[in-house]
């Protein structure tokens, strides 16, 4: 399959996954919404609309390149190739999950694909620098990518990590997903500069802004950044404009949004646009698209089935894994 179509396919897989999670998340939470109840309890931050960021960047990574992701991690995990069944089982809190049910949706860890995440805003920057440091020290030509929201760019860790990475010329790419909001707080109310990419100047590293939530433009910018890192020329700060099609978390009434804001994002749906473009460019036919949709549906269904059929952990499992045994 062509690279662009592959990207399209991954974006569709992510979208399908998020839509499906949105649905499943409501299971057992009606008629009265209760965050604690249902198939998937706890918080749920979906990334529908932000697929281009994950796909555009991660297509340039190898499976042994490291990724750190934030509280909204599904798109990154899927793009990185984390096993969908085990990831879903984790989100369902099952024994077959990536963490056997201990982690949940904000704590997806997969050593196989070198994927980690954290529910703490801005916390993924330092570990990415550390992974990059290990690559340098071990003479590996791997790269680490830290993804975070525009809200995270105001955390102290952002500054410390960019400085450290720049200083050490570490192979890291910092990617800021600007989806305009940090929960209810719009970027203009949190960020004293219009583009986070300009903050790269504070570390003498390249900063690139990619507007339009356009997977090809993102991919192009990411290719340069990843190559730069891999070739030993140090870090890059990428800022990517994107949109959040669900609320901050499921259950968010989004009363803070301006009228029409959400609709305009919906109309600017990156997948629909990319699909049209591929079709224009004759790289995708309706028929092919149907096959893709069927395939991703199947993939998600399989993952969900796997999760549903998996057992809950035993209560006494809770006491294990605080410390690794020798």
């Amino acid at each position, binding site marked *: 399959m062509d690279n662009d179509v592959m990207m399209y396919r991954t974006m569709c897989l992510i979208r399908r996954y998020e839509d499906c999670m949105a649905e499943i998340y409501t299971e057992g939470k009606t008629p*009265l*919404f*209760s*965050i*604690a109840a249902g198939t998937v*309890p*706890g*918080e749920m931050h979906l990334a529908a609309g932000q697929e281009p960021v994950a796909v555009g960047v991660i297509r340039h990574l190898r499976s042994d390149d490291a990724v750190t992701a934030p509280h909204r991690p599904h798109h990154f995990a899927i793009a990185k190739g984390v096993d969908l069944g085990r990831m879903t089982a*984790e989100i369902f*809190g*099952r024994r077959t999950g990536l*963490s056997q*049910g*201990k*982690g*949940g*949706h*904000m*704590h997806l860890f997969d050593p196989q694909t070198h994927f980690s995440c*954290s*529910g*703490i*805003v*801005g916390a993924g920057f330092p570990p990415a620098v550390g992974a990059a440091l290990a690559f340098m020290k071990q003479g590996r030509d791997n790269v680490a990518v830290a993804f975070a929201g525009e*809200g*995270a760019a*105001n*955390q*102290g*860790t952002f500054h410390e990590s960019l400085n450290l990475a720049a200083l050490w010329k570490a192979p890291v790419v910092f990617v800021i997903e600007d989806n305009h909001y*940090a*929960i*209810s*707080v719009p970027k203009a*109310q*949190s*960020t004293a500069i219009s583009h986070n990419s300009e903050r790269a100047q504070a570390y003498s590293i390249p900063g690139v802004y990619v507007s339009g939530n356009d997977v090809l433009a993102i991919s192009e910018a990411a290719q340069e950044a990843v190559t730069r890192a891999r070739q030993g020329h140090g870090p890059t700060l990428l800022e990517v404009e994107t949109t959040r099609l669900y609320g901050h978390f499921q*259950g968010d009434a989004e*009363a*803070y949004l301006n009228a029409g804001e959400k609709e305009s994002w919906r109309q600017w749906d990156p997948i629909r646009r990319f699909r049209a473009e591929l079709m224009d460019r004759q790289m995708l036919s309706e028929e092919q698209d149907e096959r893709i949709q069927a395939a991703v549906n199947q993939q998600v269904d399989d993952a969900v089935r796997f999760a549903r059929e998996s057992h*809950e*952990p*035993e*209560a*006494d*499992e*809770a*006491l294990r894994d*605080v410390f690794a045994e020798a």
Partner: protein
Amino acid sequence: MATMPMRKLTMARAISEAIGQEMARDSNVLVWGEDVGIYGGIFGATQGLFERFGPERVVDTPISESAFIGAAIGASQEGLRPVVELMFVDFFGVAMDQIYNHLAKNHYMSGGSVRHPVVLMTAIGGGYSDAAQHSQSLYGLFAHVPGLKVVVPSNAYDAKGLMTAAIRDDNPVMYFFHKGLLGLGWMPSDDLAEVHVPEDPYTIPLGQAQVVLEGKDVSVITIGAMVPKAVRAARTLAQEGVSVEVVDLRTLVPLDRDRVIHSVKKTHGALIVDEDYRSFGMTGEIAAVVAEEALDYLDRPIRRLAVPDVPIPYSPVLEQAVIPSVEKITETLRQMTQ
């Protein structure tokens, strides 16, 4: 407005009412934090304040906890009385230096010349699968370092009175509200926390524990969300003829040692129940107080129930296994009183 004889409030409303009344009373009282404005606080602790007092006094901040909590230090030195929200206590680690090395110590380090009338309020507690970074209690840790008052209300009445007292206090006060007591609607909440709350402002002095249930066979010493759980356990045991005393500490700093000792001297037994981690925390401290001062009165070993030194797991099955439940409290008390 006359106070209705039985105006029940959720704990979230009680907190925001207390803050609102103090803001009305003193223009130096300001609120800031993440999503405290239009959103009203993720857990509703600032609900209605933005509408009432506007963006000048209810300020949304960037996700820069060190900066905005640290800002309360300079602001209070210059005359403001900030009420600052740290969204979840679990995030304390990004701002702890400002909190404990400065907010907590400046008064002492300045020989008393600097004061920080700051309330740092934050959400605690698990029980709804928010996993290891959003479900902790952690107040034991703040109680360990000197200079912070530590308040953990268990019901709406106390929540209001303690918040009002906290805002009027000239010291930094850490105010911990348990998510499972707030009456949020979208999250399970113990309805024992939703009680009568007078409309007029009132204070509850920091440092006074309360016996919420008198008993004579054994004492449960506890705090926060474990208080209603202990009460439920006590009610069950009452039917079995066991009389349980439940002591709600309400504040860890100052700690009402006398009330604890008095209760244990009366019942000759102590079960300490906590939703914080078991070791090196609240349960240890209370046990030590008892062992120091009421050893001769104990007729059986002290028992502790708390999170067994594991991070809070995500799966409900696992989480329920580590957070002390009514059943576990009941069962432990049963063992202790047989």
